[in-house]
């Protein structure tokens, strides 16, 4: 931030130069923003100051003691010296003390080369130790979990990891134990350190005490090449640094962005990307060879040119014989906007079919209901959560599905927001939100109660007073209403319609904004690019078309004769396995574009090997409409191709050649032709490697404001060439020569440069005919068949999805399947926890171990949607709004 923009605040003097600053900001941040780096270990801008390490002591005139810059707010007229003799002596002393019990085993430490302790010892330390005694010893290393290793001898007890678990994630599984010189970080005797956010503790560890078990000893940091990109899993879209050596992805770390993820990401995003180099990757196009009688079909390799010809021929003949509406396209929620734009060109424009849909496990969810304002998307951004008075959560368990959004909600509640959690199960948010535990199936009744602020309360299982007080809280603006699919397979159009109408009316009056919680990295992009029935590019209306489930039914009926599945593993994801299976064996010609030979792919006629997330350039749109860049990290296997490339080739074969030769050119076309995306420009998405405010940002006179430093006796801090882009930078003495992990923590990193671009949330005027309007109706809930339980399926963070199951580091933490019942339901069936039980629906049955917990309400059975060994979709019946199951020994 340039100095002149701050003139509203106070003025203070740092190292002899008078500077403007905002009253009350922390001295450590203010100094840093002017290029004066105050060394630190315990301070992290994403957490509260504790002033424990004493590394940031500085001299403030008028104070007899040196003050910790991390816990000292700036005041008007303050005179600060970060480089006076007392300050420098204190810094040297603290560094020497931190190192007396440190093993100095940098040559074998993973952190060596990117270690804040090394960096700061070099810049601020005495260079030599007077310590000649025995060092403190601990058994090492020890595994805190399957992902995190701990070396207590390297630990400097800055407490960051423990504070992260307490303040940020709330998973208080590691703690500071023992006392004094023997203090140590460790886990408790009972719970494992299985936080979904555990990897952040490694990233913020300023030494090599916490290391990543999968990454241990794999590489030296200077051998890694880092690429800034955006996470490919969920719709939060955390910025990532993906790091490779050669052509192998070895590591991913969170990059900071205040607007999206603050400084954090989840372990799925951190450890889940090595699927790109899994041995299962498809390396060449495969075409089914029908077997002769009695033998199984086989697949044979075919050159791309021939495969594309064959697919194009089939497409042409299908259109000729059965009309364009016999063609369908499903998938793309993990593809880039540019891939999706190529897809919509082919299917809507060239083929002319209205049957396109990105939905898979969310196939029963009616996103169109939330498009009444013209745009099927959020009107909120994540930062609105911090300002909200009340947040109504009517979505899935975000800790499982949108993990970093869970952190943001937790933060918002800490900031004072009151959170209402409408969910039939007790989900993670109930730890700090008010749980509106409605009877499974009675969404519509609860919504009616909330919408009428308690004036009308149909029976929904929630206490009347609770609904009234919730109604009262919702009257306090600003409100954010977050909606999303709670349970795959469950449809309740009436409820969503009424909630959407109400939320959009609040939105119009300026009292509320809506957060539409789409699930995947680019589900929102798919909506924007028109991969949804009745919705065209830029949220313009399109002719009515079939959705995913309707297309599959139409395939069974013979109305759909050609189906293109792009990264859509419908057999395991669509909430009706029987329907998916029937569709795949219906005789329709199925083209699958995939990374791996999934069961769905192996049922197809043609399998096209696709380039993966880390192998291509493009953009993702997160659930707040923020577009961010995804960048190639490694090259794709020689046989794999980016989807946009393949789709354009087919278009060309169908007579509509395009001149675009890169996704960048497609992005320019999106900006030109998609009304909502006018002004979209990859250049706007920012330079993720924006450095610490450099000479260009800070007036030159400040560089030397430090004046004469007392001579450093041992090691002069010497500027080192920076291999990441600013090698010519000459650093003044009081600035830090440092490696990236520490720089990512600096407030002065100009985060606006990688904030992405939020497309304006307004669409062309006009009604949105996304789906046929449904009338709000109550009492969709019907009594369960005797003895049957309402099936509540929910997605887990680590599941059996094609990517997670092929991420070597996540396999060990992926939980086994289970069915969870309320103790009363278990008792009445004489079932004991841990025993194998059979869960049956009219569609199918599974055998899984039983869990008993009051988290699941009476009358319901909760299952994870897709775990190794059990797919809940074999139970689900997409023709019904709800599925009932029996549970028996």
């Amino acid at each position: 931030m340039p100095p002149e923009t701050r003139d509203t605040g106070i003025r203070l003097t740092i190292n002899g130069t008078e500077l403007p600053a905002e009253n009350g900001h922390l001295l450590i941040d203010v100094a840093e923003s002017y290029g004066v780096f105050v060394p630190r270990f315990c301070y992290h801008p994403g957490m509260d100051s504790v002033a424990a390490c004493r590394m940031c002591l500085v001299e403030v005139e008028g104070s007899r003691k040196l003050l910790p810059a991390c816990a000292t707010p700036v005041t008007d007229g303050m005179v600060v010296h970060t480089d006076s003799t007392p300050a420098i002596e204190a810094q040297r002393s603290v560094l020497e003390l931190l190192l007396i019990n440190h093993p100095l085993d940098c040559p074998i430490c993973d952190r060596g080369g990117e270690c804040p302790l090394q960096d700061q010892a070099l810049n601020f330390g005495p260079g030599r130790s007077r310590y000649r005694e025995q060092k403190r010893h601990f058994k090492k290393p020890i595994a805190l979990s399957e992902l995190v290793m701990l070396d207590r001898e390297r630990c400097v007890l800055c407490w960051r990891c423990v504070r992260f678990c307490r303040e940020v994630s709330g998973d208080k599984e590691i703690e500071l134990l023992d006392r004094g010189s023997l203090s140590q970080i460790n886990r408790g005797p009972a719970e494992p350190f299985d936080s979904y956010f555990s990897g952040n503790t490694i990233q913020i560890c300023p030494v090599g005490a916490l290391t990543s078990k999968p990454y241990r000893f794999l590489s030296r940091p200077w051998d890694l090449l880092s690429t800034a990109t955006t996470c490919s899993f969920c719709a939060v879209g955390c910025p990532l640094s993906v790091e490779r050596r050669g052509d192998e992805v070895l590591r991913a770390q969170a990059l900071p962005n205040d607007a999206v993820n603050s400084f954090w990401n989840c372990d799925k995003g951190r450890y889940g990307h090595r699927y790109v180099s899994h041995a299962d990757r498809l390396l060449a196009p495969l075409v089914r060879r029908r077997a002769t009688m009695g033998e199984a079909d086989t697949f044979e390799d075919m050159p791309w040119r021939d495969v594309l010809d064959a697919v194009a021929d089939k497409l042409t003949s299908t259109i000729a014989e059965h009309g364009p509406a016999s063609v369908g396209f499903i998938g793309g929620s993990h593809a880039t906007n540019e891939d999706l734009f190529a897809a919509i060109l082919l299917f809507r424009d060239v083929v002319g079919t209205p049957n396109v849909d990105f939905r898979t496990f969310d196939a029963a969810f009616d996103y169109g209901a939330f498009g009444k304002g013209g745009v099927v998307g959020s009107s909120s951004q994540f930062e609105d959560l911090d300002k909200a008075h009340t947040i109504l959560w009517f979505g899935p368990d975000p800790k499982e599905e949108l993990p970093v959004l869970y952190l943001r909600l937790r933060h918002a509640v800490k900031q004072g927001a009151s959170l209402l959690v409408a969910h039939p199960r007790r989900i993670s948010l109930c730890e700090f939100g008010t749980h509106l535990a409605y009877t499974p199936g009675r969404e519509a009744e609860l919504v009616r109660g909330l919408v009428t602020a308690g004036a009308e309360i149909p029976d929904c299982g929630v206490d009347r007073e609770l609904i009234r007080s919730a109604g009262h809280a919702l009257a306090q603006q600003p409100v954010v209403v977050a909606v999303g699919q709670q349970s795959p397979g469950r449809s309740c159009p009436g409820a969503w319609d009424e909630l959407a109408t109400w939320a959009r009316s609040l939105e119009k009056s300026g009292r509320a904004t809506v957060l539409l919680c789409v699930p995947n990295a680019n589900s929102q992009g798919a909506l924007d690019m028109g991969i949804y029935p009745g919705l065209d590019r830029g949220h313009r209306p399109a002719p009515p078309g079939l959705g995913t489930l309707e297309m599959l039914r139409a395939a069974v009926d013979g109305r759909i004769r050609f189906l293109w599945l792009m990264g859509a593993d419908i057999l395991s994801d669509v909430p009706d396995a029987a329907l998916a299976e029937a569709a795949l064996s219906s005789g329709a010609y199925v083209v699958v574009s995939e990374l791996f030979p999934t069961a769905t792919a192996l049922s197809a006629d043609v399998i096209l090997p696709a380039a993966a997330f880390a192998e291509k350039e493009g953009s993702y749109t997160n659930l707040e409409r923020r577009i961010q860049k995804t960048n190639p990290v490694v090259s794709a296997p020689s046989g794999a191709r980016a989807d946009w490339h393949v789709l354009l080739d087919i278009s060309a074969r169908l007579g509509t050649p395009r001149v675009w030769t890169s996704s960048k050119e497609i992005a320019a076309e999106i900006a030109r032709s998609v009304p909502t995306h006018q002004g979209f420009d990859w250049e706007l998405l920012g330079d993720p490697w924006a450095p610490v405010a450099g000479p260009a940002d800070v007036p030159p006179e400040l560089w030397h404001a430090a004046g004469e430093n007392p001579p450093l006796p041992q090691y002069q801090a010497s500027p080192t060439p920076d291999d990441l882009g600013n090698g010519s930078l000459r650093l003044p003495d009081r600035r830090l020569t440092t490696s990236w992990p520490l720089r990512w923590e600096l407030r002065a990193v100009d985060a606006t440069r990688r904030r992405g671009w939020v497309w304006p949330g307004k669409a062309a005027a006009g009604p949105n005919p996304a789906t046929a309007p449904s009338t709000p109706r109550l009492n969709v809930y019907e009594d369960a068949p005797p003895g049957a339980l309402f099936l509540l399926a929910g997605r887990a963070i680590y599941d059996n999805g094609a990517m997670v199951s092929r991420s070597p580091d996540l396999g060990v933490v992926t939980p086994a399947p289970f069915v969870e019942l309320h103790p009363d339901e278990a008792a009445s069936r004489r079932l004991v926890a841990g025993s194998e039980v059979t869960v049956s629906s009219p569609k199918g049955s599974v055998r899984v171990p039983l869990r008993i917990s009051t988290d699941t309400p009476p009358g319901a059975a909760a299952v994870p949607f897709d775990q190794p060994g059990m797919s809940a979709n074999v139970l689900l019946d997409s023709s019904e709004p709800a599925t009932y199951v029996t549970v028996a020994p």
Partner: protein
Amino acid sequence: MSDLSRLTSREATFITRRYQDYPGDSFTLERARATGAYESLKKAIATMTPDALVELVKASGLRGRGGAGFPTGNKWSFVPRDAFPRYLVVNDDEGEPGTFKDRELTERDPHAILEGILIAALAIRAERAYIYIRGEFGLGYRRMQQAVDDARAAGLVGRNIAGTDFSCDVFIHRGAGAYICGEETSLLDSLEGYRGQPRLRPPFPAVKGLYAAPTVVNNVETLANLPHIVAHGSDWFRTFGTQQSPGTKLFSISGHVANPGNYEVALGTTLGELIEVAGGIPGGRSLKAVIPGGASAPWVTDTSLPMSFEALAAAGTMLGSGAVVVMDDTTCVVRMAMINTRFFNHESCGKCTPCREGTWWMRKVLERLESGEGRPEDRGLLLELCEDLLPEKGAPASGRSFCPLGDSAAWSLRSIVKIFPEEFLAHVEEGRCPVRAGEEAREQEVRA
């Protein structure tokens, strides 16, 4: 000797009077009431507003008896006027080596403390008071709990005390072995059930203390003064002690004196007089050094020093908790320094680097020195390490550690090394303790 008896005469001792007169049952409610307990409380409730009480205590000049010597009335007046609830927390976590006055008061006159608690609660308008009592104090805990129970049964604790509309309930929390909990913010964390580690200040406890509510933390001896101040007034109180340190003080005298124990004398009494009160140094030995205010206080050798907050501060040390440890010429100062530093290292909470690592290092060096493996540079190194924790220029307020524990370790050690440089050198040169011979002689004497 007549001069000495004046120092401890009936007129000059009021804190310990009840248990000096009735050593058998001074701790019972019956005996306490028969000797005037709770009369001051009733007087305060009946005749004084909270503000008037604060003013009275300010006027008396009473200073905290826990160690820091902060004026009690001022501490009370920092509580914001309109924030409720608010708490009084009683620091009965006596752990400063050499100090044993609070334990004695707790065991022998719990009602005096309780009456003081209620008066303080009245003054700061707190309806709840918590006594944080050191975990090792078994008898003290039982006596205090009995006192609270009896007083509650007698209508002196709880709702509508003595039939008035003043209510205050008193709860006891037992520590579990951590010196740092004597530091008031650590004590609050411990009282809330956490690790007792000091909190960042500001906010100060008076604004945001226990459960984030305004809180006053007072030492038990401080509180035991209150009934007397209320009964007799601030002018009377100021007839004892000095201008800046009014009143009497319980001094815990231990080490090489004939009659170790607690002695109540007026503040300003000289160190020499105090040692004489405790029977002087036995065996015809001479004085080597004195710890004037607990393990945290720098040592002194000058017995003419008046024992007041101001005089000891001027002499570069402190009155602290009033613990006087007397060491005669058979004492090995290196061993004492090692024990002192070992203590601070053991009790360091581990939160901040200088204290956690600095006391570890100093301890390692001292243990080596003490066992005869000293190196020539050790003495200088120890002084440098003291400088690292507590730069001499500006001491004692110049410490780099989070709380005063690290400062104390350096402050006391520096004084020892500076007073007895030759003894540290002798340990290095001779590879053994030069006064060990004297100590052995003394041991034989004890055996005989």
